[in-house]
């Protein structure tokens, strides 16, 4: 059982909240959900919508074809009706003239809702006054109506309403519940005309309904990060705002800097004191951070930078999805310095990879860049409760201040912060370490951190830093570098990164049923790249790259490192993620057809 629900409306009118309540109600009933948000770079008025795919098994991505379209304005109806499946249902305002839509789509169920009537009745009952001012109630009505149609117990919806209308908003709970229940009753009469039913499932275990930004923030908390900086930017801000909301509990210093240059500098400054420190941003902010990321590379400072990618270049499509910053993350900043680039493929990985990023940063003493993308960052999903036992704290070669050490100020020692050691990782101390001092500089430096222009020192210091990349490839486990899915016997291999993972896994299931198989390599540690490891899987197979950018950036990087070229490309850069059906088809075409590049464009 799997179906897709879409709700839309003017931005700023509660669509987000009602979509979230629907997802939550389904989750309460024991189902798995995946919710994707599409919105404009605008505060009030533009059309935004939410697509929620629900199933009794884990859902990894969304579908374009709609089973239930829930609307309360005509624009949403007009925009989305073409995508409603045969035998699907449309919830609409009875005051809208539906005739033309009905003739267009004669195989779907139209469920009229007397929004104004119910709102009026509710207003009278609770003395709420002018119904024009409480139109936002349409959201609750719409959700209850949907629940009713699919026989989702109204109790689950009520429970989400109680969750949402709490605190300051508590006073509107009862009217919303009342209006909703009226609609719930009203719609019961359509149940027998509709095929989707949602009986309660008992899973018997705790899960989370969570977004990518939230999972990332949790990863930071779990890993002991206690210093976050940010400058507001879509779609990254939510991560920091969530951290602000729990700051007190975790002694978490969250600073809104005056710009992204300040943010990265603040975090590097904090990291020097031993704090696990991070900053989160998106494309434009990431561009501004490059000079200082290079400084961190030069001074071997562990700092974690999360780039929640959005459509580029420049301001681009600020609220839309893209995977356009990969090469920039790998090569950004003048000169050469070691860094690690990680890419979680889903919301769970956003948590686990973020947490482990701090270990990598401290073990290899370099900046770590986490590339998320808007489709992960802003989507919500039901996931199993995060397992803290999978995370260990490893602070690398960091010398903790030894309070018992017996020094006096006259025994003050210069610490060789950049000692040339065999494994290229110099022991590290923090600012304030008793009895020791060191220097840092963005200039090439000697072992103490003093400026040195000596060519031989340069030869070794640059080498020391850059060789860490080889060490990282050697030491990081295969599981942290890549994930392998699908059929190892297949002569087709798909390589991808980031949020396409969910779609590829889902398409795999679909295609298996249709008789097609493939091996799927999800690259998680993209830089430094374990070229040998990946080559192994590429050689002798039809190689398909799937990416949400124009130039197939990961594929290009793999070719650079292995010399192996890809045969087929499935690409999309409309700012919209790839839906299950679109991807299933595209992969089938890539396997069977002879088009080299398949360019996708579905989705509003």
């Amino acid at each position: 059982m799997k179906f897709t629900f879409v709700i839309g409306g003017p931005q700023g009118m509660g669509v987000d909240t009602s979509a979230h309540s629907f997802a939550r109600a389904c989750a309460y009933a024991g189902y798995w959900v995946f919710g994707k948000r599409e919105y404009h770079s605008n505060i009030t008025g533009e059309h935004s919508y939410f697509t929620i795919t629900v199933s009794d098994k884990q859902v990894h991505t969304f579908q374009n074809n709609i089973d239930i379209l829930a609307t309360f304005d005509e624009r949403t109806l007009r925009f989305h009706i073409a995508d409603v499946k045969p035998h699907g249902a449309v919830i609409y305002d009875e005051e809208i003239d539906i005739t033309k839509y009905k003739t267009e789509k004669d195989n779907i169920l139209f469920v009229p809702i007397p929004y104004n009537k119910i709102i009026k009745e509710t207003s009278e009952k609770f003395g709420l006054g002018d119904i024009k001012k409480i139109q936002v109630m349409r959201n609750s009505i719409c959700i209850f109506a949907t629940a009713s149609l699919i026989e989702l117990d109204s109790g689950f919806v009520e429970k989400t309403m109680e969750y949402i209308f709490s605190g300051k908003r508590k006073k509107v709970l009862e009217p919303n519940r009342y209006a909703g229940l009226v609609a719930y009753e009203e719609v019961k009469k359509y149940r027998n005309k509709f095929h989707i039913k949602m009986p309660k499932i008992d899973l018997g275990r705790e899960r989370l309904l969570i977004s990518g930004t939230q999972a990332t923030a949790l990863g930071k908390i779990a890993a002991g990060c206690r210093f976050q900086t940010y400058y507001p930017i879509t779609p990254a801000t939510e991560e920091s705002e969530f951290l602000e909301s729990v700051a007190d509990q975790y002694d978490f210093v969250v600073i809104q800097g005056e710009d992204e240059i300040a943010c990265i500098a603040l975090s590097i400054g904090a990291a020097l004191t031993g704090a696990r420190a991070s900053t989160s941003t998106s494309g434009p902010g990431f561009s501004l951070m490059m000079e200082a990321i290079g400084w961190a590379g030069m001074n071997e400072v562990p700092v974690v930078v999360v780039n929640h990618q959005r459509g580029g270049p420049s301001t681009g499509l600020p609220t839309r999805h893209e995977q356009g910053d990969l090469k920039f993350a790998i090569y950004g900043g003048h000169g050469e310095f070691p860094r690690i680039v990680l890419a979680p493929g889903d919301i769970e990985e956003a948590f686990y990879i973020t947490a482990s990023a701090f270990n990598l940063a401290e073990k290899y003493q370099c900046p770590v860049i986490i590339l998320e993308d808007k489709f992960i960052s802003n989507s919500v999903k039901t996931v199993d409760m995060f397992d803290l036992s999978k995370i260990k704290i490893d602070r690398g070669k960091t010398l903790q201040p030894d309070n018992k050490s017996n020094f006096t100020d006259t025994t003050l020692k210069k610490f060789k912060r950049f000692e040339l050691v065999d494994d290229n990782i110099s022991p590290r101390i923090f600012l304030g370490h008793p009895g020791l001092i060191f220097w840092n500089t963005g200039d090439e430096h000697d072992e103490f951190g003093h400026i040195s222009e000596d060519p031989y020192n340069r030869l070794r210091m640059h080498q020391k830093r850059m060789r860490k990349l080889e060490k990282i490839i050697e030491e990081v486990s295969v599981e942290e570098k890549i994930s392998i899915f699908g059929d190892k016997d297949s002569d087709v291999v798909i390589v991808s990164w980031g949020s396409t993972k969910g779609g590829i896994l889902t398409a795999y299931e679909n295609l298996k049923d249709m008789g097609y198989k493939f091996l799927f390599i999800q690259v998680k540690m993209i830089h430094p790249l374990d070229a040998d490891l990946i080559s192994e899987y590429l050689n002798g197979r039809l190689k398909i790259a799937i990416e949400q950018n124009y130039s197939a950036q990961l594929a290009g990087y793999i070719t650079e490192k292995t010399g192996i070229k890809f045969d087929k490309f499935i690409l999309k850069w409309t700012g919209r993620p790839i839906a299950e059906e679109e991807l299933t088809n595209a992969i089938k075409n890539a396997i069977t057809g002879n088009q080299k590049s398949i360019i996708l464009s579905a989705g509003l």
Partner: protein
Amino acid sequence: MDTKEDTKEKKDTKKDMYRSDVEIDWCPGCGDFGILQSITQALAELEIPPYKTALFSGIGCSGKTPHFINTYGIHTLHGRPLPFAIGAKMANPELVVIAISGDGDAYGIGVGHLVNAGRRNVNLTYIVYNNGVYGLTKGQASPTLRRRAQPKSLKYPNINDNINPISIAISAGYTFVARSFAYNVKHLKEIIKQSIIHRGLGLIDVLQPCPVFNTVDTREKYLEKIKILPPDFPTDSPLKAIEKALDTEHLWIGVFFKIEKDTYEERYSEILKNYPRLSPSKVQDSTSDISFAVKNFVI
């Protein structure tokens, strides 16, 4: 910090301990020497242990200062010492933090940070070496060089007006704003001490002759114009301070402005009950329980 330990340290603190063994490569006669001396003397007289002190500098001749001093010395990026310094201070409020810039660094490329830091009142001292030129890049006009002035490297007389750092800092919210003269080590040292002791953000604009490139603002010219603020100058009035800063006849030195206001650290301790005790630098070696944070997501 443990007071007992403190006393012990104080006793052992020696003045010359603060000069590192790195050879100074400033030009002979450069005002930077006086500033360096003032800083090390101030630290010595306040008996601040080197390892509890972190100096953050930008890029320029001025930016080299930390290498010459025996404390943690972080030579950052052009225009960025302030945010690096603030990050360190907020993550470990036990550190004594000093930021150092040239005038190009602080008032040109870095002035966005300078202005925005004023809104935070972090407890640190910002010393700006104001020589009217970009020294290390060979003498181009800096933001403090006057219109029509033409030091030796300029192809034509300066086309820009100069900014007034004192009045900008006061407008931006600095709670300690002072000016001194690089060759007057005693005066400068005292001001640095006052600023370090001051609970809040201090800006010290130091008039610093650059004999090599700033051939118009020479030691002599400075001595003609400089006047020390009278001892009874009221340091609590932004308007009076700005009036003195705008004076074109004299170059006043001394403390223009000094008020008490809650520091950024204090503001965070309103939000975070354990701050500054459990500051971000106190990382635990085990994972943190996330159950409170996931509360709202649990299904």
